[in-house]
Structures are given as C-alpha cells and as structure tokens.
C-alpha cells in the first residue's frame, strides 16, 4: 500500500515535469538561442545551455539599421506608441461604460451586456476588409492612428466586461455616504470610485496592451511605409522570411515577448474569471 503510494507520487511528479518541460521549453529555447554565438546556433549538435553566452545578437538588432535609418528601437517605439494610446483610450471609455452597467439599472442594460458578449465573438479577421475600406475613406491609411482606432474597438468589449466586476465590487455605501456629505457625482466618481477601481483598471489595461502589442494582421494591412511598421510586422518582414539569421530573430523575439510575459503573469488570474464568468458556483 505504502509502496503503491510512492510509485503514484513519482508518476504524478514525473508527468508534472513533462508538462512543465513541454510548456516552458520553447520560451527557454528562444532565450537560450538569442544568447548563443552563431557557431553554437548552427552547430550539428545543439547545446542545451549556451557555452559562451554573448549579447552580440542583441547588439546587432539594437544598433544595426534594418532599413536605412530605421532600427529595431524605432519599431519598438511604434508598437509602444500604438499600444499605450490604445490602453489610455480604451481604459477611459471602458471605465465610463462599466460604471453605467455596474451602478445603474436601466432599460437596455441586459441588451447591452448581451451585445458585449456577442461582439467579442465577431471574428476580427473577417473585419479586416471593411475596416481597410473605412481607413481608406478616413484618409488614415498608412498611419499609426489607423491601428490605434482599430485596436480600441477590439479591446473595448472585453475591457468593459472585465471592469464591470471591479466597479461592482466597490461598496455602494461609500458612494452613498459621499453623496450625503454633499459630494457631486463627479466628485464621488473621482474621489471614491476611481481610486478603488484603479487596480482593476490596471489589470484591464494590461489586457488591452497585450491585444494591441501582439496584433499582426491589421498592422500588416493598414501600414505601408516600412519606417511605420509595428514590431510584429517588422519581425515577420525582416526576420521571418530570412531563415538563416536565427540569432537576431531570437533576440528580437525575446525583446518582444518579455514585456508581454511579465504583464501577463501579473493579471492572468483575472482572465480566467473574466472568460468563464459565472460558470462555477463557489
């Protein structure tokens, strides 16, 4: 009996290690490759750990011009500009809407919530053609605002859906007390609700950031000038097609991935509860 338990323990832990390896290995391999000198990357027998770690690939992508006058840093900045603008706009609009749904009962409330669910299921890939038309008509083709606008639409439904939970969690009594003390609605919102919802707003913003930061198809389609490419487009364009430069490719991938991983780990808990909301009764 006891021996059976030990065998079981070992088997479970072994399975756990296998799962961990499968899940984390590609990320490890990306970072490891980015730190290897070329002769190690292209050697016949790959080494599990870089024998002579080097930052030469990072130096190459950070200082070298990918096209004349444009470096990796420029693409990084384009991406950051688009993602941060998206986050700010989407956060503001989502907070207003989430307050409306969480704090008021009005006629169209349920319809609005259903609509939020439904629009999240719209295949965004199907919208690339009509949005391309809209961007052309608005004269925004080949500009970064075309992407900010697009990502704002994409990130908003989930942001509202997630934020409404945070707003609802703030005790109403606090606001009622403030109102009795003579605070105006705006003051109540700014002094009471906003500070208490701020952590939720940060979490929501991270999701909007990741959406905007990772997006490829629309960025590929709406921006034509190479110096305006966002990072994902630059990566598929300059690296993805040149199969020999794996060192710089992995260095660029690492720089692209790390902010996302860090942000993601901060908020992943809320993602589960947001997506399977109400599915499990505690």
């Amino acid at each position, binding site marked *: 009996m006891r021996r059976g338990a030990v065998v079981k323990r070992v088997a479970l*832990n072994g*399975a*756990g290690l296998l*799962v961990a390896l*499968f*899940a*984390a290995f*590609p*990320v490890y*391999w*990306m970072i490891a*490759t980015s730190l290897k000198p070329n002769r190690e990357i292209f050697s*016949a*027998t*790959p080494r599990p750990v870089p024998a002579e770690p080097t930052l030469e690939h990072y130096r190459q992508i950070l200082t070298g011009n990918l096209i004349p006058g444009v470096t990796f840093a420029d693409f990084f900045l384009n991406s950051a500009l688009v993602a941060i603008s998206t986050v700010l706009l989407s956060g503001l609009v*989502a907070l207003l*809407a989430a307050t*409306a*749904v969480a704090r*008021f*009962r009005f006629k169209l409330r349920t319809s609005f919530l259903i609509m939020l669910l439904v*629009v999240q*299921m*719209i*295949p*965004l*890939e*199907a919208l*690339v*053609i*009509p*949005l*391309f*038309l809209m961007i*052309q008509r608005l004269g925004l083709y080949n500009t970064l605002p075309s992407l900010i606008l697009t990502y*704002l*639409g994409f990130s*908003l*439904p989930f942001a509202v859906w997630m934020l409404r939970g945070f707003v609802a969690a703030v005790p*109403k009594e606090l*606001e009622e007390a403030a109102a009795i003390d003579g605070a105006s*609605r705006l003051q109540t919102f700014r002094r009471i609700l906003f500070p208490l919802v701020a952590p939720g707003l940060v979490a929501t913003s991270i999701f909007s950031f990741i959406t905007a*930061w990772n997006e*490829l*198809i629309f960025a590929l*389609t709406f921006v034509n000038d190479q110096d305006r490419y966002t990072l994902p487009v630059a990566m*598929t364009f300059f690296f993805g097609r040149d*199969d020999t430069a*794996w060192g710089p490719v*992995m260095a660029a*991938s690492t720089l*692209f991935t790390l902010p996302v991983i860090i942000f*993601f780990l901060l908020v992943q808990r809320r*993602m*589960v509860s947001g*997506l399977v909301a*109400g*599915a*499990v*009764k505690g």
Partner: protein
Amino acid sequence: MTTLTQAPETSAARETPARRRRRVDRLPYLLLLPCLVIIGVLLLWPLGQVVAMSFFRLNNVRQLRGDREWPWVGFGNYAEILGDPFFLTVLRNTVLFAVANVALTMILGTLVGLLLNRLGKRMATFVASCVMLAWATPALTGTIVWKWMFDDTSGLVTWLFNALPDGLSNALFGRADWTGYGWFNSPLLFFAILTLVVVWHSFPFIAVSVLAGLKSVPSELHEAARVDGAGPWKVFWKVTFPLLRPVFGILVVLSTIWDFKVFTQQFVLAGGTQDRPTFMLSIYSYAEAFSPPPKYGLGAAIAVVLTLILLLVTGIYVRMVLKQEEES
C-alpha cells in the same frame, strides 16, 4: 437628491413604480455613449459592411476610396467560391483543423488541470508557472520559435530525428538523414506542426480553467466515490465531469471559436499567403482580398461564410452564459 447608486433591491423597496418612472436617469446612457459609438462604428458597422461588400465586384483600391463605381454582382461572389472545388478543400481544412485542435486542446488541458489538482503544493506552483509561460507567449513569437525548432538544418527537431538510431529511423520513416528535410512541405505535416503550435498555445487556458473548476468541487465527493471503489476514470466521468459540465461547455465553445479563425500562427509558419494547399477560411479570405490582384468582394464573401459559421457557435455560447447568469 440623486445618488450614483441605484440598485434595484433598494430603490424598488423605497420607491413606487410611478416615482421611478418619473425620474428616468440619463446619466447611464451618457456614460455608455462613447462605448456604444466605438463598438458601433468599429465592430458592428464593419460587420454589416463586409456583408454589403460581398455583393459587389471590388477589384481596385480606388473603388474603396469611392473614386470609382461599385458594380453590383448579387450572389456572384458566393457562386464563384461555392463553385470552386478549392473552396471545399479550404472548408474541409478549416473544419478538420478546428475539430482536431479543439479535441486535443481539451484533452490535454483537462488532463493537466486534473494533474495540477493532484500535485503537491510546490510542484503544482512550479508546473502552473511553466504552463503560464506558454499561455503568455504571443502567438507571433511562439510560432517563430517552433519554426526555428523545425529548421531543416540546425533545428532541434531535425537534430532529434538525426539522433535516432539509423536502423530504427529507417524502419519507421524510411530515412535516416533528416538534414534538409522540408518539415513544412507536405500539407499533412504542416497541419500537424500547426496543431502542435496551436495546442501548445491554448491548452494552458483550459488547464487553468479546469483547475479553477476542480477547486470549487467539494473534495468529499471525490473521496466518497473513491471509497466506494471507483477508479480514476469512473470518478472523472461520474463525479467530476457532471459537476463541471457548464465549464466544459464554455471551454469547448471558446476553443472552437478560437481555432476556427487561427491566422497568425499559420501566416508565420507558412511564411505568408503563398501556401495555398494549407489554406483555411481566414487566411483564404485575406489572401483573396489583399494579394495582388486584389479581390475585396470575393474576400468579403469568404469572410461572411466564416462569420456565419462562428455565429452559429456563438449562439450556443451566449445561451450557455445566460443560462448560468440566471442560475447563479
């Protein structure tokens, strides 16, 4: 005095219906306005627009800018794609890929969720953190790394196959030297690798959700079943699965929706939109519309077909969520 909060329980108790009606509050609508405008303009209007575009012959970007006429072709675009045997190939690819990926993701995710629930605390934290890494990795870079691992000269997978004893490798695959082997050349192998990449990206969400569900199930139920002599297989199907049925329902639907519209992974793995035999609906629509010569109308028609399929799945999803909101 108006307050910011008007929950139904309190206000309904204090106010008569007549009083409430008199005081229709415009504030919630004002707060919703920007959100509604954005969703309307950027999601709903384009959704209508894609349907409209699918009825026109749009082969020139100047038509989109409004400089040229839009010739109406009725269901011409739909007739063209439905009459094209290639469309059936694409549809078959899409459906088979989605079914295989949903099944594999659900099985692997559920097994990992069950495993995490059984592991000791420190081990569970370690495994869960590793699983989180796969989830957090952007589709783009995750795919690039897998592509590197399948590189035909220095890739890790190529090396692994080369490291197999020659006799065994010959007996199993009919070749011993894998250097220069085109992993992405046959459509079947391409789809297998794409499946690996997509499952790797999507099983963590299933695992974590299943784990969250398991944590909410009283462990006495499992113990009681085990005491009664039920094996793990039976415990899962007789106890765990029925209790977590709503979670599984939602997870299957979400996975189906995600796997039907896989784009980035395919685009990166195939190196663009040239690999026609491996097309699925979303990349087919994109390629028709944006690869020269552009056919926006035709691309729109394909996008509409994809949307209709997903709409069906979404209908099921919304019904499930609403049912649960009612129950809780």
